[in-house]
């Protein structure tokens, strides 16, 4: 018994002392290479290396590079220049059994405020790298041999081929249906609830002798929902021109203001009442969300607008606007593609165009072949998506495979 206890004590002592005594630096990573990171704008370098022998004792790898400096401050740093100081750009954990490791060094900002960004990866310029291993006991290996890589801008994103295929199919279908529609063939579009009430809402404002408020949201002029909203604005403006009812369009973006002015002006011209067009009724308020809301809410109360339209991209201001409008007793028609804001419009306005209905509305109102054709094409793509999802789920459930899913894998 005594000998057993003595043996256990000695064994424990040996085990406790062993790590300290046997502590040695790990091996550096092997076969480090640096090459252009594919599918980017030319500010990324992909580093690849292999885990060395004894990788189970390695916690992570530390990646170092030579800093960038602008041309005006001298030639690029090279490993043999005396003033070169290596900077750490990343740490890559060693996952058990992982033999091949990689790290992408990417940074496209030349300056950080007024300071030079040393981590910037120049396009078509060489960057030098070295990597070392960090063991679980805190010791570090020597650096592996230095390598250099050059970042190049890529024109083609090879991992978005599936998106390209969808775009091509959709484009071809659009062209086909636009031609069909332009050729005089009537393409059916189902009535959209809410749109039928536009005339009624404008008529009500006319009867009451009050203006109409059209809010284009807080998106930008390039947003698809904003573009769709312009078509509805054109329709509303045309009716208001016929009824001689003023339409007020407060906007949060100068470009949107210019586009809205152009849209309304054109609508008044088409209605044969250019004399009624008032550019001052389409005005810029503020680019910031909540001051914009405060001003629009005040406008609703002071101008006593009889009808409010909210069409476009909306964020947290949706409920604030719709609720304030509701208290004034105005008829409210809304439409947005922002899923998180639709509930507020559904709750606080009289009619809501849900998501894609906003896009469809512009086609429905204009009856323009260029808008009806794409709508028809989208329906085909939607049917295809529905079918792919159904096939994918059936395949996953019945055959336990993921072939359909791998086809549409998005990177």
């Amino acid at each position, binding site marked *: 018994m005594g000998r057993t206890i003595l043996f256990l004590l000695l064994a424990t002592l040996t085990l406790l002392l062993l790590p300290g005594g046997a502590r040695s630096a790990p091996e550096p990573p092997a076969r480090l290479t640096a090459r252009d990171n594919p599918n980017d704008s030319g500010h990324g370098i992909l580093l690849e290396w292999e885990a060395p022998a004894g990788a189970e004792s390695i916690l992570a790898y530390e990646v170092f590079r030579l800093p960038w400096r*602008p041309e005006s401050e001298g030639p690029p740093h090279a490993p043999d220049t005396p003033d070169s100081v290596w900077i750490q750009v990343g740490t890559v954990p060693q996952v058990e059994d992982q033999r091949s490791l990689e790290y992408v060094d990417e940074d496209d900002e030349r300056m950080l405020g007024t300071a030079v960004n040393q981590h910037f990866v120049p396009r078509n310029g060489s960057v030098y790298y070295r990597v070392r291993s960090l063991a679980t006991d805190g010791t570090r290996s020597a650096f592996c041999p230095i390598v250099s890589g050059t970042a190049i801008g890529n024109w083609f994103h090879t991992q978005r081929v599936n*998106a*390209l295929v*969808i*775009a091509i199919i959709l484009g071809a279908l659009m062209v086909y249906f636009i031609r069909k529609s332009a050729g005089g063939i009537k*393409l*059916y*579009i*189902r009535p959209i609830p809410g749109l039928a009430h536009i005339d009624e809402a404008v008529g009500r404002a006319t009867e009451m002798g009050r203006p109409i408020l059209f809010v284009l949201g807080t998106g*930008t*002029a*390039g947003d*698809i929902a904003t*573009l769709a909203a312009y078509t509805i604005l054109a329709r509303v403006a045309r009716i208001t021109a016929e009824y001689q009812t003023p339409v007020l369009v407060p906007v949060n973006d*100068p*470009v949107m203001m*210019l586009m809205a002015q152009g849209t309304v002006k054109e609508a008044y011209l088409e209605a044969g009442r250019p004399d009624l067009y008032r550019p001052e009724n389409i005005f810029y308020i*503020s*680019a*910031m969300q*909540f*001051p*914009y809301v*405060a*001003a629009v*809410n*005040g406008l609703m*109360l002071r101008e006593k607008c009889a009808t409010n339209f909210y069409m476009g991209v909306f964020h947290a201001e949706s409920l604030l606007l719709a609720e*304030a409008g509701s208290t004034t007793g105005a008829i409210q028609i809304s439409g947005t593609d922002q*899923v*998180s804001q*639709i*509930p*507020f419009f*559904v*709750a606080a306005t009289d009619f809501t165009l849900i*998501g*894609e*209905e906003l896009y469809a509305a512009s086609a*429905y109102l204009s009856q323009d072949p260029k808008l009806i054709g794409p*709508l*028809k094409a989208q*329906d085909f793509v*939607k*049917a295809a*998506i*529905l079918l*792919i*999802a*159904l096939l*994918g*789920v059936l395949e*996953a*459930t019945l055959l336990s495979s*993921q072939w*359909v*899913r791998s086809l*549409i*894998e*998005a990177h």
Partner: protein
Amino acid sequence: MDPTSAWGMVWRGIAALITLAIFSFLWRDNPVYKFIERLWVGVVTGYWTMLLYYTSFTDKVRVPIFEEGQWWYIFPSLLGVLMWFRLSKKYGYVSRYALAFYIGISTGVFIPLTIKTSILYQVQGTIRAIDPTWTGIMFGIAFLGILCSLSYFFFSKEHTGVLGVSSKIGIYTLMIGFGAGFGLTVMGRVALLVQRVIFLRDYGIDLLGGGL
């Protein structure tokens, strides 16, 4: 600045008065609200003017072109200048070239992005096995809801027959989702209100020397 110092109390007092002035809109439109509304818009306009000057003009025009010699930045800058033609009645049409470029670029950027995020990612996330577990059954119900909701957005076919039924289920599914989203966001808004009320309460306590 120490919020309980004399200056701290003055600034907090201004913030508290502005908060109350904004809240007064709940009663009715009034001169105090009007004043604060205009003050807010004015302050923000000034702030944004300077912000845009530094983030747009300095960072995207002056520094790249004149300090870093990246002459190709001249082209977008010229497009920006074209926008000023809007001020001229005779040459106002010139600004449309800049707008056309802007819309074209935005659409080009958005289409691949939308295909990726709104189509591919969504379908990818939807495809999974319906197994005979509770989670599997719930996913099966959700999947049916997805299919029906999608059918609601078919515009080129009349919603009658099978499509009529599925689109009806679809709109109910959407409404359930909207209801959940509404509740979640309202909770967030209430939290914001509570935060503001706590600010007013703390200011009141500090103003009265902690006597409340």
